């Protein structure tokens, strides 16, 4: 590894980085704007200046942009030199000439990279006394708020939206000091990844529109690490709360899964937590025909317990509930009476996925991004697993780069140069889908056909992998050749059984040929795979069997069964007990409704498409009558078995061998850091003694959290917590999300202490 000298001190750094990346990684603070670990360098902002010396005798040095300077052995530089310091302060002052200085009313205030960098450079008084250039803002739809005057022309937005994510409708317009970042006209942003602009833009130009309504500063938010339950990818998120409302959802970095970016469904799709449809009090009805009325928790529980006692009770689980909730239901009703709440098609595909994952290795999103070839069979990923589509796009962009830079050695991080070099070349990404998808433009070849035709193509590819032939005109042989030539290949599929089997056949063929190949199967919901691992009977059987008393866990039967079947089944049911967080057609027919906590208010484990168990923690304590489903279900039993989350999780690990490792997904509630719990609130959390003063001047005791090592408080450990417990990114001088740099082993690499979660499935075929 090359050694560089910073202020005459030697440091070992990785050779393939630029100087900025290397210095930040060593813990030095250099201000920067346009560089982003996932987007590379373009040298647009001139903020990251350092002074480089020719040799140890050179005292004059030369100012260079560290983000555009490759690391080389023996490089000597200084970061803290009066000349460069003045240079950087001038650059900031120059950027601020047209900046409106409106931090007090800006939604980015408090987690703004521009604020941090301005303070870091020491520019604190403005000398500019003239008119500023102003822009007209655009209405960018329901998710993103636009405030163009705050722009500092770093180009990050376009480089993410247009280059990285492939969005077509946001670009840069104008010239000189009139550069404008936006759409050609007002209108909702079309990309599925537009929400990332909020985090990518270092200023308050793009802000989270739904979160704006709450006007909460970052330091006032109570947050907890969690996972997104909107699809099977299991991206890591942070839920942020203030005044009992979910304010915003932020990306939580996970090297193997979502990295720096989320899809909009994850970021903006959790509004049901604050929704009008939420069930906040237990409901019960006197008799069939009477209407549902609010009742006390005790009353609802006693009704439910009576209904359950001595009867044959069946339980219907849910792929959107946590593993623990499903397990608690299974324990309550017995394994024989536990039905997976999946539609027929979902049931088959989930079980097949499980079987295939036990046989063949799978790949994380990071492994997809860095693979050399990929084939998508039958899935429109932008609707079923959007973040995976973004990963595949990176594969398609990265792979020609890797080939081109061998011939013309420019560093991979030199974004502009690399794009110049690669032009329109596409990587070995192949897609076969029933209709056009947004991923098509990144694919080297596309095939449209019915699902059975797609399965046929998959089998043809498998056959062509087995028997490479000379003729290359057929699509199957073209794909097979590309897959065979790849060092690592990924086959993505899901949904349809025949197509999944075909995908597995391709992987088997590649492995027979000695290639490293992995199979990725999308899952429709947050815990579909976990539910399949828990095991249970198909929902269609329940319709046939019928039962006197049915408990439905966080599920809407009308969404899983044909209308007539669902109605007939519910007619025959004498007592229907439903646990859910929002009103559905099933809760409307229930006799007892128990209000369940949403994912943002509960502790639980979810299993993603790779079979990785991940823990979610409650960001805020639910209202008194709202409880986690596993708590309700435990209360329905004759005596309480599981007072805390760890009890239910451990019981599950013992009872179900597949989940033996599930408790390791995150530290248990007993975990303490230097004797303290990890605070969910920032040290600057405001108004603590005043928020409830209108009710009682004595400050109430914060809610206890027996379920996790996190505390509903600002008091607790100030150390950097273990990766599964990171509740916010903050470091001294770094208030924006970019504080993340301080949490990684190497910038853009895994988190310190390893990325959270455990893989529960060991494939027979070793990768």
């Amino acid at each position, binding site marked *: 590894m090359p050694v560089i000298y910073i202020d005459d001190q030697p440091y070992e750094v990785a050779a393939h980085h630029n100087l900025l990346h290397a210095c930040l990684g060593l813990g030095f603070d250099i201000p920067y704007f346009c560089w982003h670990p996932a987007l590379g360098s373009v040298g647009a902002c001139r903020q990251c200046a350092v002074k480089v010396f020719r040799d140890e005798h050179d005292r004059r040095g030369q100012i260079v942009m560290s983000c555009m300077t490759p690391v080389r052995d023996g490089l000597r530089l200084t970061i803290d030199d009066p000349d460069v310091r003045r240079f950087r302060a001038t650059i900031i002052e120059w950027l601020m000439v047209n900046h409106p200085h409106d931090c007090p*009313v800006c939604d980015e205030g*408090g987690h703004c990279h521009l604020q941090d960098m301005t303070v870091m450079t020491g520019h604190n008084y403005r000398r500019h006394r003239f008119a500023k250039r102003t822009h007209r803002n655009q209405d960018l739809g329901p998710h993103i708020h636009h405030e163009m005057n705050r722009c500092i022309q770093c180009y990050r937005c376009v480089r993410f939206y247009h280059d990285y994510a492939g969005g077509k409708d946001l670009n840069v317009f104008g010239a000189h000091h009139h550069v404008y970042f936006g759409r050609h006209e007002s209108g909702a942003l079309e990309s599925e990844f537009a929400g990332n602009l909020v985090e990518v833009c270092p200023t308050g130009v793009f802000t989270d529109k739904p979160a704006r309504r709450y*006007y909460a500063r970052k330091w006032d938010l109570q947050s907890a690490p969690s996972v997104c339950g909107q699809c099977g990818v299991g991206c890591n998120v942070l839920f942020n709360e203030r005044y009992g409302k979910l304010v915003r959802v932020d990306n939580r970095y996970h090297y193997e899964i979502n990295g720096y970016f989320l899809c909009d469904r994850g970021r903006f799709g959790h509004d049901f937590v604050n929704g009008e449809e939420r069930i906040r009090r237990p409901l019960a009805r006197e008799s069939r025909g009477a209407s549902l009325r609010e009742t006390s928790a005790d009353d609802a529980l006693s009704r439910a317990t009576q209904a359950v006692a001595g009867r044959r009770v069946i339980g219907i689980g849910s792929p959107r509930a946590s593993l623990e909730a499903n397990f608690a239901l299974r324990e309550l009703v017995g394994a024989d009476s536990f039905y997976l709440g999946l539609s027929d098609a979902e049931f088959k595909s989930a079980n097949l996925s499980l079987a295939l994952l036990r046989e063949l290795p799978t790949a994380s999103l990071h492994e997809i991004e860095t693979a050399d070839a990929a084939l998508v069979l039958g899935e429109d990923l932008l609707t079923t697993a959007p973040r995976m589509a973004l990963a595949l796009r990176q594969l398609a962009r990265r792979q020609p780069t890797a080939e081109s830079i061998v011939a013309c050695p420019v560093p991979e991080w030199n974004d502009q140069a690399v794009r110049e070099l690669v032009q329109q070349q596409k990587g070995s990404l192949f897609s076969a889908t029933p209709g056009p998808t947004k991923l098509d433009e990144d694919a080297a070849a596309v095939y449209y056909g019915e699902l059975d035709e797609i399965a046929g193509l998959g089998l043809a590819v498998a056959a062509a992998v087995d028997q490479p032939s000379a003729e290359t005109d057929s699509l199957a042989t073209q794909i097979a050749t590309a897959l065979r030539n790849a060092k690592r290949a990924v086959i993505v599929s899901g949904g349809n059984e025949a197509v999944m089997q075909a995908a597995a056949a391709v992987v088997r063929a590649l492995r027979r040929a000695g290639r490293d190949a992995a199979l990725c199967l999308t899952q429709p919901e947050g815990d579909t795979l976990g539910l399949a691992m828990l095991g249970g009977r198909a929902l269609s059987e329940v319709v046939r069997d019928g039962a006197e008393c049915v408990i439905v866990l966080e599920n809407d039967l009308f969404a899983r069964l044909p209308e007539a079947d669902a109605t007939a089944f519910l007619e025959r049911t004498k007592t229907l007990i439903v646990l859910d967080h929002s009103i559905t057609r099933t809760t409307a027919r229930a006799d007892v409704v128990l209000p369940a906590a949403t994912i943002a208010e509960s502790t639980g484990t979810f299993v993603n498409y790779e079979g990785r168990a991940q823990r979610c923690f409650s960001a805020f304590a639910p209202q008194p009558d709202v409880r986690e489903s596993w708590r309700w279900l435990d209360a329905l039993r004759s005596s309480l078995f599981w007072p805390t989350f760890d009890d239910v999780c451990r019981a599950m690990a013992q009872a179900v061998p597949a989940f033996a490792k599930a408790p390791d997904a995150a530290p248990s509630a007993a975990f303490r850091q230097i004797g303290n719990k990890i605070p969910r609130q920032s040290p600057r959390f*405001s*108004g603590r003694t*005043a928020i409830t003063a209108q009710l009682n*001047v004595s400050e109430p005791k914060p809610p206890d959290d027996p379920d996790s090592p996190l505390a509903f408080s600002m008091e607790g450990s100030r150390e950097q917590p273990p990766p599964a417990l990171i509740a916010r990114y903050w470091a001294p001088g770094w208030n924006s999300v970019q504080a993340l740099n301080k949490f990684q082993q190497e910038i853009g690499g895994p988190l310190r202490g390893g990325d959270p979660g455990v893989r529960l499935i060991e494939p027979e075929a070793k990768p």
Partner: protein
Amino acid sequence: MGKLDKFLLTDLFKGLMLTLKYAFKKPITYQYPEVRRPIEPRYRGRHRLTLHDDGSVRCVACGLCAAICPSQCITIEPMEGPGGKRMPQVYEIEIGRCVFCGFCAEVCPFDAVVLTQEFEMATTDKSTLLFDQQTLREKPRG
């Protein structure tokens, strides 16, 4: 102290002398509340939210005062006022917890919150010590 001093009660007489001396001096006690003590110009008392000429609050509810407050006794809920202006919907100070450090006034970018010289806030009911926006807008007494 010598035995003699003890015997002669020297200290006692010293004290009595002092009392006698002050008996002929002008009293320094203020007959509060009839007579009010002058307040030092930089004295920090109850807060006030300052207003624009048109009577609207200057505060834009940025939250800096609430963040810097060491006793965390300020709470602000912002809202969008007329013309899209950001302003506080709720601005409350739990004055019973306030330590009158003046950080809030120091940090405010708009001089929207200031500490007046009013100090008479004694009450028998602690719950009246929660000052809302209306109370804080009022000019101090005296």
